[in-house]
């Protein structure tokens, strides 16, 4: 353990000791120290360069079944003292809840390769050059690429420490980097946007030129898009769009949503809830996963949780609190967005497992359909009922071939019916940050158009 980590452990230890001295029966200190670099290039010039460093403490205390929380970015003794006092004040008026508890130590933690020194090792100049080369690759892909909205390079690293009064003392160091490009292509009066991104744990795995070309390709192929007539046809969701639909399921698969009556999966364990071709997994220890870490936001070892296996609902995600309520073990999904919040049930690396079929084969079997590459209004879907109605755009499939761009079409229905109709899963699982999906093919549905 380096000196920085041991300094954080001792700050956390002191905070926990202070909280128990002040009357907490159990206490937990979470400290995160983060660094971030963001470079935005436009027209070959650096438009914005942002460097960040911050750290803070989140303190959770339990007294008589009541949990209090407070946070501070001031890790000096005075700041910690105020935070411990305030956390205890905050638990006074909280409703008593017998399931409030902190995890015990003794977990076995996986050793994960989540800190690449190459990210910090690369110079700022190299990173600027990377964003420039991505922009250049996009521009030179096609002369119709008109506006580069932004060409971004980003990296970040975090040192996370958790100490609790049950004797838990943990820390890890993680880092990630990524590129993002958004652009607009134009021809005549028509303008279409495209973007691409790539986040990874290894600096030398970044492929800026590929990302630049991908963004350009997405915009260019949509030039001249027009609506077609309403039809009953197959839809093929590219990995990005399929990942968006997968995202709709995330809240419903949490133990919290089930317990609060907000999940469309409540009471359906063991039921067939999707096509037998679909398997959905959350894996907080996934090798190479952007959201991978040895433990979650309260120190529970992360794990691989099969949520839907061959279409059958197998389980839900839990943090320590919701697991206690259901009498099960936490799945290591107590996720913290920052030191400013408590660990809530959330996803880590969440994905549909890859299938076996090449995308070309999935397409070639379709007589009439739409290859969907963009969706509008996904956030208006109702996560409780699963009802959705979204605008879609993409490419027309005719006799197994992608023929021309279409936009202004709409599909709707219920997410469960939609997923039950998946009849093909590609072998091209792709991640967008922590979420991912292969290409999915959905058997005939109504696609509204002109």
């Amino acid at each position, binding site marked *: 353990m380096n000196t920085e980590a041991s300094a954080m452990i001792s700050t956390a230890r002191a905070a926990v000791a202070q909280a128990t001295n002040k009357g907490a029966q159990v206490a937990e200190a979470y400290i995160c120290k983060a660094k971030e670099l963001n470079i935005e290039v436009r027209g070959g*010039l*650096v*438009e*914005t*360069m*942002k*460097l*960040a*460093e*911050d*750290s*803070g403490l989140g303190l959770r205390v339990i007294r008589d079944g009541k949990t*209090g*929380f*407070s*946070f*501070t*970015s*001031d890790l000096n003794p005075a*700041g910690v003292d*105020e*935070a411990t006092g*305030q956390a205890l*004040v*905050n*638990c*006074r*008026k*909280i*409703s008593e*809840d017998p399931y409030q508890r902190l995890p015990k130590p003794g977990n076995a933690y996986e050793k994960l390769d989540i800190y690449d020194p190459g990210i910090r090792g690369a110079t700022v100049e190299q990173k600027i050059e990377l964003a420039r080369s991505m922009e250049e690759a996009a521009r030179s892909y096609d002369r119709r690429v008109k*506006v580069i*909205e932004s060409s971004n390079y980003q990296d970040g690293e975090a040192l996370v420490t958790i100490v609790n009064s049950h004797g838990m003392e943990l820390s890890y160091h993680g880092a990630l980097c990524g590129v993002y490009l958004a652009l607009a292509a134009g021809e005549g009066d028509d303008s279409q946007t495209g973007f691409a991104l790539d986040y990874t744990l290894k600096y030398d795995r970044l492929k800026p030129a590929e990302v630049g070309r991908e963004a350009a390709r997405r915009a260019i192929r949509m030039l001249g898009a027009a609506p077609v007539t309403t039809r009953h046809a197959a839809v093929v969701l590219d990995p990005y769009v399929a990942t968006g639909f997968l995202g709709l399921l995330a809240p419903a698969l949490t133990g919290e949503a089930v317990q*609060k*009556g907000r999940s469309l999966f409540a009471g359906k364990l063991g039921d067939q809830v999707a096509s037998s071709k679909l398997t959905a997994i959350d894996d907080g220890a996934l090798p190479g996963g952007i959201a991978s870490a040895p433990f979650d936001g309260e120190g529970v070892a992360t794990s691989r949780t099969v949520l839907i296996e061959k279409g059958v609902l197998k389980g839900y995600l839990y943090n320590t609190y919701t697991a206690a309520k259901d009498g099960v073990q936490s799945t290591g999904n107590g996720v913290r967005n920052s030191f*400013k*919040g*408590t660990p809530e049930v959330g996803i880590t690396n969440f994905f549909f497992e890859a299938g076996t079929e090449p995308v070309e084969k999935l397409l070639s079997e379709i007589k009439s359909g739409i290859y969907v590459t963009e969706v*509008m*209004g996904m*956030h*208006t*879907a*109702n996560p*409780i*009922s699963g*009802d*959705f*109605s979204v605008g879609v755009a993409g490419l027309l499939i005719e006799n197994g071939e992608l023929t021309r761009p279409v936009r202004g079409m709409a599909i*709707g229905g219920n997410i469960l019916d939609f997923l039950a109709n998946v009849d093909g899963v590609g072998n091209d699982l792709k991640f967008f940050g922590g979420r991912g999906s292969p290409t999915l093919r959905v058997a005939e549905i109504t696609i509204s158009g002109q």
Partner: protein
Amino acid sequence: MIDLVDKQLLKEVLDQALQSGGDFGDIFLEHKKTTAIRCEAGKIEKIQTGVDVGAGIRIISGEATAYAYTNDLSRAGLLNVAGIVSHAAAGGRKNVNLDLTEVQPLVDFTFKERPEDVSTDRKVAVVEAADQAARAVDPARIKQVIVGYGDVVQQVTIANSEGDYVEDERIRTRLVAQAIAVSGAAMQTGYEAVGSLSGFELFISEQPSLVGEAAARQSVNMLEAQPAPAGRMPVVIAGAAGGTMVHEACGHGLEADLVQKGLSVYAGKKGQAVAAKEVSVVEDPTLNVRYGSYRFDDEGVPSRKVTLIEDGVLTNYMYDRLTAAKDATQSNGHGRRESYQHKPVPRMGNTMIAPGKTDPAKIIRETRTGLLVKKMGGGQVNTTTGDFVFDVAEGYLIKDGEAGPRVRGATLTGNGPEVLRIVEMVGSDLGFTIGTCGKDGQGVPVSDAQPTIAIKELIVGGTATGPSNGKIRRI
């Protein structure tokens, strides 16, 4: 005020940041204390408080911005950050003014009951009052009530290379209630929020129980509503609906950064008629204690009222320092940021369509038939084109000039700039809503308002996609 860092050190830090060049440099120091209380299923689930302290330093050279932040406010910590941003500038040290003279505001606000002086018990009592009032509206059919209370005490110090020095304090308090009513297979939601630039005195003018009641009534009332009709029809948007539409579909297009990037329909339209003659759009952060009010913006520029559209003619944009310099003008006090972790960008505060002279009741009477919108829900807006879709959270059919039966599941589809051109009547009332406006990944508190307006016609979609989540997504 908490003395974050002394003036002499600020001078040294700015001096260090500007050592290798840069046209402008500033430092933003922030001390923020927050309280959040959440009640769900009749239980106080969360009481969370916190302190976040930090500083952001910015150097602008030409069109490039270098920004760095830290929450290490020690002398060494600040000088280290200044050193980092200084590397991004080139061309050698320029002539800068580091006098740091205190800037005077054009408006002042006083806080009567500071959140730190109010016990947690009293804050919890406010939440419980709203929760109980909501449940009491219809104990059988109200299935869920969620109430959230929040207060923020933000103290900032801003100093820059033009010699300005500003200390400011913003205290904001809010209360939000959400209710879900169920009857058979029908489920409807209701939402109400109040908030202002003030301390706990907010609850002298805004009774917590009324907030809960309003959310609950809305959810229960909508259970009995009939499905909305579809098609083109005249639409009256009541003042009570607030200015969500003007904020989202027009306001963003009047922010100078979007205008300069060519991402706004209002680019190059200054001096031109862009709305009906009856329409004036005003952005006024000086309003007394509204949720989006402020004394100084986050670049230390005194806030002021800016008329964006006057009698239908586009008169001005919202500027921060960077966009103002590009247009060879002065900032008009709209450079805002979420926290020390963000660089400022042009933002709204309190945006509104200015009230006219027509009695709101007369507007409904003269509309004869159409849709009356009493409350807006969530939606989606393309800020580049102004195209929008909004859910109508509470709507009524207008028949024979009277507000008739309630309708549910209506959506409004249109184009913001186009709508302003077909406004036919403007009421003498004014209704506000509050919210957190997101842009470039930064959320800032805002309010928006409008009088009752009659719009010649909008496309009303009558197919409900389920309860609105109240969120607005911009693309």
